[in-house]
């Protein structure tokens, strides 16, 4: 029987203590918030970071267009020599559509009524993007030689504004059999937006040389940048923490070797190293199975760390009724799920639910699913704390049986279990089978390579930082005290040293998100980052260099976007530094 079936007094006592513990962490947070709030710049930074994140999450709703879609024309209907307009901000030209119309009644393409529509292949996966344009007015009508024709030869179908009607003079006119060019102003349903006042539904930042709406590209670019920034910073922190804490805790020869390797990394300028690394990876199209470990291992270490950290701050004894405990657990799980959802669905460009299970198209789906389920069950068993309590092989089976607690499902909602879910989801989303080997990342595109390169060049800084912190905390008496009661190195590391060493790490992490965004955009600027015409800010600036004097707006907005995002993270990091600074703790 569980505790909550026991006496009422017991339960009240438990709840009271739970409240106490919660108010403790709440007062801790509110004190931090009070310190943080003191700085206007820090508040500004927080505001910037939140707004950029919101823009990234709601990019579809804010952007007026698909970032790669040509506003003015469609690929399959446009003549090849046409050079799309670089429309200025707020100009009307980006609503102009130029279309070739066949006037030969004998041609299979001919139809008396011509549909004005946009039908384009866009995006990473070449999905069709189709919508109907309503014609508002005609701008120009030319024959195939470029001579102007009378605009009255065309009219708009009164019953359907997306249909053009050719006058009889036009069709059947043998001199025009090559076709005519019509330029008309269209009204795009897609460009009406909830946040735009009437009459301003034009491309507010103009279009680029490909006719892509710049505003939409900048908005979508925030996803790419934030994704790169956060993924790279997180993974570098994890790798750096693991390496640095090993180096600091064990010291001696291990430390010496790791630090010399770090020296080598420091000796080569980061950007040049990252460039060379991207170039070295350029022929690699997919990541294969051994790299699973590269993702799984850090996640588990992080999970172990968080688990012990949470345990150390939230008193989790069985005296606190498990009912109440389950509330925390549920809250914890929902929160983490939310974060994971936003991170993996919101910020991953083009990711959607079908992508997560894209593996189902693969032939080895069944085998893989079976493997996945086995892994999952095994991981659940491993995730249970009881299993670790007496790690010996005697009677292991019985203990595994004991470790399943069917009466209380909530106890599985620990961070560790969630980490298992997340890592499995990661595996499912990225893996597929190619030939004999199982591939982790199918489309190992250049953005992935940029991230890999930045992780590769970034971890030594964290390793050094964490090593210093670990060396410092290691000398504190409470570590010796823990050792004197018989605590093992793992416990000392995760429960005593790291929780007291994370403060500078948090600051460095926040600052590093900004730094990573800068480096990634620098790589893209040099042509080693994102693929051509991707909505990536650095690349957009690079592409705008050709029109430097003619259309400076093309580089202005992406640059401002980078500056605002990075500034936001830098200000945020500064604010956090003030909060964790012991001088301000009083």
């Amino acid at each position: 029987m569980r505790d909550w079936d026991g006496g009422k007094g017991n339960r009240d006592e438990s709840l009271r203590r739970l409240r106490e513990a919660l108010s403790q962490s709440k007062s801790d947070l509110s004190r931090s918030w009070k310190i943080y709030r003191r700085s206007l710049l820090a508040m500004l930074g927080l505001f910037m970071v939140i707004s950029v994140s919101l823009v990234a999450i709601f990019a579809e709703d804010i952007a007026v267009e698909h970032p790669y879609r040509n506003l003015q024309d469609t690929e399959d209907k446009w003549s090849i020599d046409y050079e799309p307009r670089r429309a200025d901000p707020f100009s009307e030209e980006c609503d102009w559509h130029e279309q070739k119309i066949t006037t030969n009644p004998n041609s299979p393409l001919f139809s008396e009524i011509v549909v004005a529509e946009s039908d384009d292949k866009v995006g990473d996966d070449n999905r069709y993007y189709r919508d109907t344009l309503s014609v508002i007015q005609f701008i120009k009508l030319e024959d195939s030689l470029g001579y102007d024709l009378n605009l009255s030869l065309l009219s708009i179908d009164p019953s359907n504004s997306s249909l053009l009607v050719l006058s009889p003079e036009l069709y059947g006119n043998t001199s025009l059999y090559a076709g005519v060019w019509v330029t008309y102003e269209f009204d795009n349903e897609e460009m009406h937006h909830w946040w735009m006042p009437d009459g301003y539904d034009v491309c507010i930042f103009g279009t680029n040389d490909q006719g892509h709406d710049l505003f939409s590209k900048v908005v979508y670019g925030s996803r790419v940048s934030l994704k790169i920034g956060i993924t790279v910073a997180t993974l570098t922190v994890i790798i750096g923490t693991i390496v640095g804490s090993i180096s600091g805790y064990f010291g001696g020869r291990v430390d010496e070797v790791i630090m010399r390797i770090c020296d080598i990394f420091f000796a080569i300028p980061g950007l040049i190293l990252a460039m060379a690394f991207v170039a070295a990876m350029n022929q690699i199209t997919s990541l294969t199975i051994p790299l699973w470990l590269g993702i799984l291992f850090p996640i588990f270490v992080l999970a172990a760390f968080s688990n012990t950290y949470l345990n150390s701050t939230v008193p989790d004894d069985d005296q606190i009724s498990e009912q109440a405990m389950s509330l925390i657990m549920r809250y914890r799980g929902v929160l983490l799920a939310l974060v994971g959802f936003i991170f993996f669905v919101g910020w991953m460009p083009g990711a959607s639910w079908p992508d997560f299970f894209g593996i189902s198209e693969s032939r080895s789906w069944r085998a893989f699913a079976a493997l996945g389920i086995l892994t999952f069950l095994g991981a659940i068993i491993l995730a249970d704390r009881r299993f670790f309590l007496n790690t010996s092989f005697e009677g292991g089976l019985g203990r595994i049986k004991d470790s399943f607690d069917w009466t209380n499902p909530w106890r599985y909602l620990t961070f560790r279990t969630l980490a298992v879910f997340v890592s499995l989801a990661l595996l499912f989303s990225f893996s597929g089978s190619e030939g004999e080997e199982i591939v982790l990342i199918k489309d190992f595109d250049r953005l992935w390579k940029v991230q890999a390169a930045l992780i590769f060049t970034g971890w030594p800084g964290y390793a050094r930082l964490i090593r210093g912190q670990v060396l410092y905390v290691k000398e504190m008496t409470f570590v010796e005290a823990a050792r004197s009661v018989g605590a093992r190195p793992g416990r000392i590391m995760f429960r005593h040293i790291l929780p007291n060493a994370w403060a500078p790490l948090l600051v460095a992490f926040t600052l590093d998100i900004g730094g990573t965004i800068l480096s990634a955009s620098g790589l893209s600027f040099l042509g080693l980052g994102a693929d051509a015409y991707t909505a990536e800010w650095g690349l957009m600036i690079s592409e705008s260099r050709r029109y430097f004097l003619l259309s400076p707006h093309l580089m202005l907005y992406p640059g401002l976007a980078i500056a605002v995002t990075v500034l936001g993270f830098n200000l945020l990091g500064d604010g956090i530094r003030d909060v964790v600074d012991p001088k301000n703790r009083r």
Partner: protein
Amino acid sequence: MTEESRDGEVLIEVKGMKKWFPIKGGMLSEVKIHVRAVDGVDLHIKRGETLGIVGESGCGKTTLGRVLLGLIPITDGSVLYDGEDIRTIPDRELRRRMQIVFQDPGGSMNPRMSVRSIVGEPLQVNRLAEGAELTQKVADVLDSVGLKREHMNRFPHEFSGGQKQRLALARALSLDPEFILLDEPTSALDVSVQAQVLNLLEEIQEKHGLTFVFITHALNVVNHISDRVAVMYLGKIVEIANTADLFDKPAHPYTHALMSAIPEPSLEKASRERIVLSGDVPSPADPPSGCRFHTRCPIAEKGLCDVEDPPLETIDFDDHAVACHFPLGPGMRLPVVDDAQTQSGDDDGPATVVL
């Protein structure tokens, strides 16, 4: 009771304990220099007693304690616990039987852990209790050091210095050990709180039948709490005796000097002579030859003291051992030197004793 019947027998025996710390020399020099923190100590601790260890800072008393508990590996010699070498006792077993209370009560507790976690940690890592049982045990042990159950969810910074030391004691007691090493447990506390903690210690020792080793530099505290006292100088024990004997009849000149440094509250005795030792404590990396104390000793004799290391030998009464070629008898005084020589402060010359 078995505990009481075994009272008085030897619990820990230290034989020739040495702890040398290597320090790195220059890059080009091969010869390693060692700091001889503990350099050949023989000692026994009886069950149920309190052994005080006194000495100046840097004399190796803290290191002695750490090695005694097996927290740092011993360089040479052995520590026998209940007749067994501590290196052969499993770590978990050892931790259950021997515990330590640190000097800085605040620093010895992880600021991010609640009292329940701190006090319960020994039970947790040794897998002695879990969940409700753990909470109950923590509550009991908190109760025994005079803290309340409500304190369990607080964090260390919410407690006063004396309360923190109680917490540290509670942590040590949670495993129900036989032996606790108290490493200057009161030196970071206010005098008023010191007395409370000392009384608590005595009370707990009574209740649990504990054996204490009490490391301190404060002689008055030692006088108050110890049954026997060992005096350390430069990694060696120079004198060990029952507390009363040591304070009444100190035999080693260093002990004399220490005794004279105890402030006397009484006005009548204010004129008692105060022995000021000349010079600094020599470096433990390069200890003097012969008797370690001869560089500062007022009665050292050339040719003997600087050549031959005096062994720790029992003198006239039981349990009073001293390591000196010329142990002072009861009532004997050290020779007195005038002020001028004190000022000149010559290291190798005879020690100065100021009236």
